């Protein structure tokens, strides 16, 4: 199903440039949070749709089920396109189509063969003539992980029916286990995130809650400790749930998910050396690209665990290794260290983000401005009109224009200016950073670029003299807090917020405000709230 997929704009691509360079149908400022007549004193679950797990979740789950002894298949069908939220877990992105089930079958067969080959390491009782009890042992351990709970009698019988059919047909134990695994790997219990019907809001079962927690925090299945805690009813108590949250957040398994939250929120795909003009940026080799990526992922994980919203937006400290420190102009380091990078405020100043919001040859003030206005402040920006490039091509420009000259020319067109007068200034604040996020004292023509401007929000104008003061202004906006709450909601529930979510969003915004902007407090507030621990059908 194509669903809500939208135009996938590769960061830094010319398409991205088009999307941003064109006139946006600006519809105004941030939309007010929906204020329905809900009684927020009554806990109510958020509506959550079932979905097939994504490719990264599948790979992580396979590794977790089989303790890394079996490689996941690369045939598993990935998500398609980008949805309304920008997060890759939207249900429509993994709906099945004509070839999906074929691919699921082929991926399951890959897994069946891999398990068959790894049986000596997975199952000590396994050999060609092993008895069915050995298959039962397999289900006790690996089946429980795959299903994220103990199998019901019917589920166990269903899987063993496949095993028995192969044995009856003359297959040996290895063949039967390959078939059983192939069956298991295609079941809805494994490849879908499903929860029982809830026409009215109801508490999640312990197993459902454990599964939700694992998918949100780890992008994977629960580990044995979480399954045990669920089985023992520990998640029912605030202390038990809090203990598991602390453990899960501290675990390395959370790192990729926390990084994904920021990457997808900030539209920052992983940087490849081939993304940029090799002649202009010979220093961007695979190693430097890897350093930039790792730095961003480390920053994301540490900020969500221990940081604040203000720090996320304004801190000039970031993780760097030797190669990245050189790019940043920081003091030399020999291993991963937090370095001071003046002039690089928060995530918006990170090279990974600056490079993502750039073209192959140069930075893009439009893409960067759009990031600030749309992703960080949730200001409504429409799509560029069909004739955007035609209009752009006709704008009067001097030879070798600076970004500011381009911006001024765009804003001379009244239709363009309706959006670009707000969009361009915050982007121009980062104009001294090139396409790989390196600070350049002058542009290629030797000009020192003016990076001062005014941020226009809700009709108010805020002066800034460069990236740091800009991001201080951004961090001081109520919209930044509201926007973060929305992004966290979308990430957690894999959908846009709706009328029924006003209580959840208000509580989230308050959690950010009342805990000095602690991101961890916001996350744990959400994951322990009735919105998360209960469910209602969409």
């Amino acid at each position, binding site marked *: 199903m194509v669903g809500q997929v939208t135009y996938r704009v590769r960061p830094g691509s010319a398409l991205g440039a088009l999307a941003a360079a064109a006139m946006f149908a600006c519809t105004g400022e941030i939309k007010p949070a929906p204020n329905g007549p809900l009684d927020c004193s009554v806990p109510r679950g958020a509506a959550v749709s079932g979905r097939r797990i994504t490719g990264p979740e599948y790979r992580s789950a396979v590794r977790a089920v089989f303790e890394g002894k079996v490689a996941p298949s690369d045939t598993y069908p990935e998500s398609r396109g980008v949805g309304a939220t920008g997060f890759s877990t939207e249900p429509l992105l993994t709906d099945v*189509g004509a070839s999906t089930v074929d691919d699921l079958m082929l991926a399951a067969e890959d897994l069946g063969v891999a398990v068959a080959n790894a049986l000596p390491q997975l199952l000590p009782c396994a050999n060609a003539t092993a008895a069915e009890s050995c298959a039962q042992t397999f289900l006790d351990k690996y089946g429980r992980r795959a299903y994220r709970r103990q199998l019901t009698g019917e589920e166990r019988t269903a899987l063993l029916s496949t095993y028995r059919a192969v044995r009856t047909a003359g297959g040996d134990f290895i063949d039967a286990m390959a078939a059983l695994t192939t*069956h298991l790997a295609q079941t809805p219990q494994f490849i879908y995130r499903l929860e029982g019907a809830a026409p009215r809001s109801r508490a999640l079962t312990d197993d459902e809650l454990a599964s939700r927690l694992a998918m949100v925090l780890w992008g994977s299945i629960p580990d044995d400790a979480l399954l045990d805690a669920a089985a023992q009813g520990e998640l029912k108590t605030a202390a038990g749930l809090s203990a598991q949250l602390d453990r899960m957040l501290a675990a390395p398994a959370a790192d990729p998910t926390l990084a994904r939250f920021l990457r997808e929120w900030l539209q920052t795909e992983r940087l490849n050396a081939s993304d940029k003009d090799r002649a202009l940026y010979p220093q961007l080799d695979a190693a430097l690209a890897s350093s930039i990526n790792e730095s961003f992922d480390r920053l994301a994980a540490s900020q969500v665990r221990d940081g604040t919203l203000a720090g996320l937006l304004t801190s000039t400290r970031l993780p760097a290794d030797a190669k990245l420190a050189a790019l940043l102009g920081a003091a030399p380091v020999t291993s991963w260290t937090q370095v001071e990078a003046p002039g690089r405020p928060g995530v918006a100043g990170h090279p990974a983000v600056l490079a993502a919001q750039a073209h*192959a040859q140069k930075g893009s003030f439009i893409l960067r401005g759009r990031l600030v206005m749309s992703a960080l402040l949730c200001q409504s920006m429409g799509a560029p009109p069909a004739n955007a490039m035609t209009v752009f091509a006709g704008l009067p420009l001097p030879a070798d224009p600076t970004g500011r000259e381009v911006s001024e020319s765009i804003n001379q067109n009244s239709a363009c200016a309706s959006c670009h007068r707000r969009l361009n200034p915050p982007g121009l604040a980062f104009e001294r950073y090139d396409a790989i996020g390196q600070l350049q004292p002058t542009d290629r023509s030797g000009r020192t670029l003016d990076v001062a401007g005014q941020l226009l929000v809700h009709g108010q104008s805020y002066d800034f003299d460069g990236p740091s003061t800009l991001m201080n202004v951004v961090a001081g906006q109520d919209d930044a807090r509201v926007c973060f709450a929305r992004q966290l909601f979308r990430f957690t529930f894999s959908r846009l917020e709706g009328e029924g979510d006003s209580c959840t969003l208000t509580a989230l915004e308050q959690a950010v405000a009342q805990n000095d902007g602690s991101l961890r407090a916001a996350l744990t507030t959400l994951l322990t709230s009735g919105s998360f621990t209960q469910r209602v059908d969409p």
Partner: protein
Amino acid sequence: MSVRIGRRLFLEGTGGLLAMPLLESLWSRPAHAAVAPRRFLLMTHRHGRLVGTGRMKNGVRQDIWAPSNTSGPLTETMSPFLAPLAPIRQEVVTIDAVDNLVRHLATGVKANDGHLFPTFTYLTARNRTADGKLGGPSIDYVVGERLRGSAARPASIVLCGNTGNSVLIQGFGGANGTAPNVLDSGGNAAMAISKLFAGVQPTMMTTPTVRSRLQERRGLVLDGVEKDYQAIRSQLGTADRARIDQHLTFLADTKARLGSGPPAIPGDCRPMNGTEIPAVARQYSYSSAHDDAAIPVLIDAVVRALVCDITRSMVLTFPSDVPTFDFLYPGGSPFLSDVWHTQIHMSGDSTVRQANNVKPTGIWYAQVFTSLVQKLAAVTDVDGNRLLDNTLVLWVSDLGYGPNHYCHDIPVVMAGLKSAFPKGQGRHVVAPNRASLGDLYAQVLRMFGGTDTTFGATGTLASVAGVRTQTCDNGIAWCADHGYPGFITPDTPLHLGPLDL
């Protein structure tokens, strides 16, 4: 400008299969002619004519695609874009004045997007649904449904010629607009080919393995899986149940096709596997070297898949956002990694340097089309005729004039299925009263024996959409700038009648 065609593609396309294994030599002519199935092969690429706007400038129409401004026999010179079709021009009909009218129904999020809505409509001839899905099946699926003959055969398979998972793929849809059968594999051509021939590979095995025995038991496993889905659905809410029901529908299709062991395949079938893809193309990221090495093999795979009767509707699409095709520029590419799209937009004036930079890519697409036609012509089908004579080959694009996102004057080329062209081939046809993509696809269905007079949405623009229609009160130039030529108004009918084929 001289154009360097990839070595293998050149040898295959113009040399009559000089370099690759000769397909004809692989398949013997049957002693007794049988009835051959009809096939459909669709080729699509991005950005339409790539260069020009269709407008007049200094007395010259800004266009490099049209062989002529009027209907008539195709001449050897063809056009700059279509020059490589010269050797097969007697097998070809080029069609002009075809419009994607439905694009102008676009509503909802990103309705103004210059690429998204053309993509979502150019193969379905329907507007998107309110919740953002395709409005219906794409033409390849509809044709394939009618031709497939057996549930054991996919209605249509979409093979990505270059890096997949891009916007153009989103135009293809199965029943009710559901996701199509796309083989993109993230740009890994070897995996795409392995998947394409997955159903027939077991017959190549000589020594049984765990995998081959597992494949023979697919039906057994899928029976169990199907029961699991049926069992769980009753525990779910309405929306989740619908999601599982959709899975069950496609699971039944997979079981019917692949569940009963290796399918019966024509004796002339020679399955391919991923090892025939050069090592440079077995990677997941886009590169020009990847495409140069992989595409000739993919063209071969398309033809062999039709011979093997894996499907009777096959698509070869070039969906990538970044087809810089460095291999076309031996002196060094004038493009930088991701500026291809911008280059297209700078090519509205067909005389400028940017336009000249873009032209080789159009010529290259024409070369690929020529190669496909020549390969189909080189194969003898089970009825003793050429495979080309039983196959309709259609080439369309998502846009007309790509530089301006125009959705009028979609470039259309047809070849093969000679019996379906009562006025013969080797012609350029300018639809006298213009035609819509709905007209074109209805004609395709009639060429396969259908009685269809429409395809996709019907009525007028206003009667169907009731929204986002323009009266062009601001003048023709304004309308053209916005993709609304003067002839596209709320009263424009979505079907204008048969094409003169």
